[in-house]
């Protein structure tokens, strides 16, 4: 964890006693050369091969793990500590962790796509195993024994003859400043004592006792509070503003204006808010925004120019079976809806900018901030500090850019800038609206013979990293930066087409991704990207096909699946739910099932659930929810359960209630009354998640696997309860009522 207080004293991380923690900058110079190695190293070691970039052991025996990934509330710190502790044979309690920091950790890009265990977990697991081997070698020299008479045990190397040397007495100088080898002496997973055991999260005690855990909690000496005044809508130009009136307010230090970017800094937080309000009231804007009609936005998007890509073409999809079905599905724009509006603290001092940020990618942010401000990346230091959960690319980076602009205008004073609720929901990049259409044909045996699928979507990533135009403020400066042209995320992971290819065994298939570059609303990555709609569509349609084939939905899926891990997850969920083929259900109650393997290459997740639909109102009550998940080798099973439980509840909220609303000029869903989300009385009756552990298998990452299956299971249960098939998200009570004709 990046302890904010320590970070703010800018305590450099140097050796104490016989320590060998080497500052990261020292090891970086040789990286380019090391990266030339022809053999691929495990996980992120491939890009950052020095072992001491990942693991440090100091003169007191304290172990530090360095990760380039960010804690976002997903519990990554705890799982990574477990990986290190396991292979190093130390108590996890002696291990601390430093998360993404452009001057202390490896550059692991973005913390996104459920990649952290795969990239960073794999690197740390392997680095720790190689460090253990080095420690054994060092002990062998010291004790003059062959290495096969030595083993690691609780922070020491112990010899068969009873002698032992503590790690801290072995790691003199730069003993760990070595490049990683392609092969690691990994333990047999059967002997694991830390990995695979549910472990309490390291961050929860602080979070439940008011420790300064979040960027919002930083208050360095001399800090000022800042607020930004955003235009009334996209692209508006500032005509005039009464700066003098605002600067007369008590506590106000300075109004910062740069073109159409407007902000104010004050001594106290409430003074900054009052100043922001007066500034907004006196500002005159020229509005130029023109948004599409919300009621027909999907048709509008589908008429825009597209870049088309056929991502599957096998057999002859035109071949028709005995029974042909067609359907179309859609999802609206969705808000990330962080409970804490985005925030950053920035300090500009002696030509150096330091930014504490809850960005998912401090390295790309550093590079982009430097370009925006005309600085070099070396002059910018970004330190990841937790914020409220983000679930993708929300306004974290934008708040960092805002704080940086204010900090540069007021050098020497730390600037804490937090967005207001209405700014967060009006200006963050939304999860894009999407549409898809599918045609499927069954043969007379009830098997799918052909499948065509098309999906239409904007980009799912406008993250910073390239030109500054992806930072909101950069678009509004006196010398504005235009956003770079959006790109589709390539397969096999995909963006809009993530999970667009059916995982089922179908002989004839054609799948097309229609990528829409033009973005009438600001959009970017939201948990699951295109998989949320694609899995919703495919898994809804599988039920429609099962119904046409007069098959049980669970059996119908198994009929088309050969991967044993996929089958295991489906069977486990069905069995734990008590799914029976001809179960009788009371009137108004329905059950639904859905399955997906995230990106068709990562975590397997199946969801079975039941709902009650109130006939008069169309209201849906979520009953029992049962899920089974296989994310490979499970490091912290309770952490995986927490992620999947959260995914199911969050996806239920998206699926039943959520939709960004807008007029022809403005985003109109700007608070929790205009953008309602799930509240406690509507939470499921119960959620049970069964983790299928796969010791020795690769880490697959569980963060996003539940979003699609939960949505489709709900739609399938509503169809089961009411006979009405809803294909346009969200599945609101109003739409259900219309569909069932009340």
């Amino acid at each position, binding site marked *: 964890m990046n302890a904010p207080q320590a970070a703010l004293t800018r305590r450099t991380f140097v050796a104490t006693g016989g320590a060998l923690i080497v500052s990261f900058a020292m090891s970086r110079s040789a990286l380019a050369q090391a990266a030339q190695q022809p053999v691929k190293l495990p996980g992120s070691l491939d890009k950052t091969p020095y072992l001491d970039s990942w693991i440090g052991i100091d003169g007191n025996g304290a172990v530090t793990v360095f990760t380039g990934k960010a804690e976002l509330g997903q519990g990554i710190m705890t799982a990574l500590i477990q990986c290190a502790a396991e292979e190093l044979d130390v108590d996890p309690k002696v291990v601390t962790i430093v998360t993404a920091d452009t001057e202390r950790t490896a550059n692991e890009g973005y913390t996104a796509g459920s990649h952290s265990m795969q990239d960073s977990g794999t690197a740390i697991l392997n680095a720790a195993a190689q460090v253990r081997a080095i420690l054994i070698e060092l002990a062998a020299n010291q004790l003059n024994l062959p290495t096969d008479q030595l083993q690691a045990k609780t922070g020491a190397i112990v010899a068969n003859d009873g002698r032992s040397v503590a790690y801290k007495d072995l790691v003199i100088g730069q003993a760990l400043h070595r490049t990683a080898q392609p092969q690691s002496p990994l333990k047999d997973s059967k002997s694991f004592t830390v990995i695979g055991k549910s472990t309490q999260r390291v961050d929860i005690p602080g979070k439940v006792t008011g420790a300064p855990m979040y960027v919002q909690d930083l208050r360095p000496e001399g800090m000022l*509070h800042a607020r930004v005044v955003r235009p009334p809508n996209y692209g508006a130009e500032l005509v005039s503003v009464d700066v003098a009136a605002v600067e007369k307010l008590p506590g106000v230090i300075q109004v910062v204006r740069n073109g159409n970017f407007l902000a104010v800094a004050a001594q106290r937080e*409430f003074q900054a808010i009052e100043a922001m309000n007066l500034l907004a009231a006196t500002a005159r804007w020229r509005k130029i925004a023109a948004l599409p009609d919300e009621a027909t936005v999907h048709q509008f998007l589908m008429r825009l120019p597209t870049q088309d890509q056929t991502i599957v073409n096998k057999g002859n999809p035109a071949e028709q079976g005995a029974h042909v079905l067609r359907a179309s599905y859609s999802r609206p724009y969705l808000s990330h809806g962080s409970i804490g509006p985005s925030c950053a603290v920035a300090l500009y001092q002696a030509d150096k900018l330091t930014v504490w940020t809850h960005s998912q990618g401090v390295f790309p942010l550093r590079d982009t901030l430097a370009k925006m401000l005309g600085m070099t990346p070396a002059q910018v230091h970004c330190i990841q500090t937790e914020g409220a*959960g983000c679930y993708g690319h929300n306004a974290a980076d934008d708040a960092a850019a805002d704080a940086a602009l204010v900090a540069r205008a007021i050098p020497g004073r730390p600037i804490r800038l937090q967005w207001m*609720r209405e700014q967060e929901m009006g200006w963050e990049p939304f999860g894009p609206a999407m549409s898809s259409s599918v045609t499927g044909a069954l043969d007379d045996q009830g098997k799918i013979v052909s499948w065509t699928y098309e999906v239409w979507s904007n980009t799912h990533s406008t993250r910073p990293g390239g030109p500054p135009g992806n930072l909101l403020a950069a678009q509004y400066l006196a010398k504005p930066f235009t956003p770079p042209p959006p790109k589709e995320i390539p397969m096999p992971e995909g963006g809009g087409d993530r999970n667009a290819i059916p995982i089922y065994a179908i002989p004839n298939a054609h799948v097309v991704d229609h990528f829409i570059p033009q973005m009438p609303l600001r959009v970017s990555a939201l948990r699951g990207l295109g998989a949320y709609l694609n899995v919703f569509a495919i898994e809804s349609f599988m039920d429609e096909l099962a119904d046409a084939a007069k098959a049980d939905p669970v059996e119908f899926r198994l009929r088309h699946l050969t991967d044993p891990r996929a089958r295991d997850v489906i069977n486990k969920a069905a069995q734990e739910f008590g799914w029976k083929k001809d179960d009788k259900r009371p009137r108004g109650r329905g059950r639904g099932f859905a399955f997906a393997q995230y990106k068709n290459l990562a975590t397997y997740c199946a969801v079975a659930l039941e709902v009650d639909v109130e006939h008069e109102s169309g209201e849906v009550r979520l009953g029992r929810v049962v899920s089974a998940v296989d994310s490979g080798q499970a490091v912290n099973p309770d952490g995986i359960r*927490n992620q999947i439980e959260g995914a199911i509840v969050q996806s239920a909220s998206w699926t039943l209630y959520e939709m960004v609303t807008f007029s022809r000029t403005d985003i109109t869903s700007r608070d929790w009354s205009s953008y309602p989300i799930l509240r406690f009385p509507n939470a499921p009756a119960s959620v049970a998640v069964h983790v299928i552990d796969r010791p020795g298998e690769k880490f697959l990452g569980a963060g996003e696997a539940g979003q699609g299956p939960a949505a489709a299971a709900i739609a399938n249960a509503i169809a089961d309860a009411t006979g009405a098939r809803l294909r346009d998200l969200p599945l609101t009570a109003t739409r259900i009522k219309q569909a069932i004709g009340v």
Partner: protein
Amino acid sequence: MTVLNVNGQQHEVDADPRTPLLYVLRDDLKLNAAKFGCGLGQCGACTVLVDHTPVFSCLTPLAAVEGRYVRTVEGLGTIDKPGPVQRAFIEEQSAQCGYCIPGMMMRAQSLLEKNAAPSDAQIREAMAPNLCRCGTQMRILRAVHRAARLMTVEIERPMREAER
């Protein structure tokens, strides 16, 4: 100067009396637990207790709490000696990002002070003003049930010992 009692301690605060209590707690008293979420009383991240009743501190002006008893998560226990609600949230691992959790804990504390053994439906009803975006609701419900048991044990133990 406004005098207020926070977690049993008297504080004199020199701030505009219109200042919402939230900013006084966070910026003047340097208490981190109560969080800014919406400033509109819609999410509950800022929930604290005033004279045993949960309030949205983002909407409660400093002037309104003069001389009243304000409680925040910092008053429930410490990291070394967590109180029953805090222990329950740790034992049930009832957090993901955790930003909403202090507000959840104060609302739960208030419920359990009025109703020592609430039903699941009563807990859901009482917690309805507070939003969690990570989807940790099921764990929060378990934590409130657990906290109810922990509090009952804590009350009963000294009583039994006194009887002996």
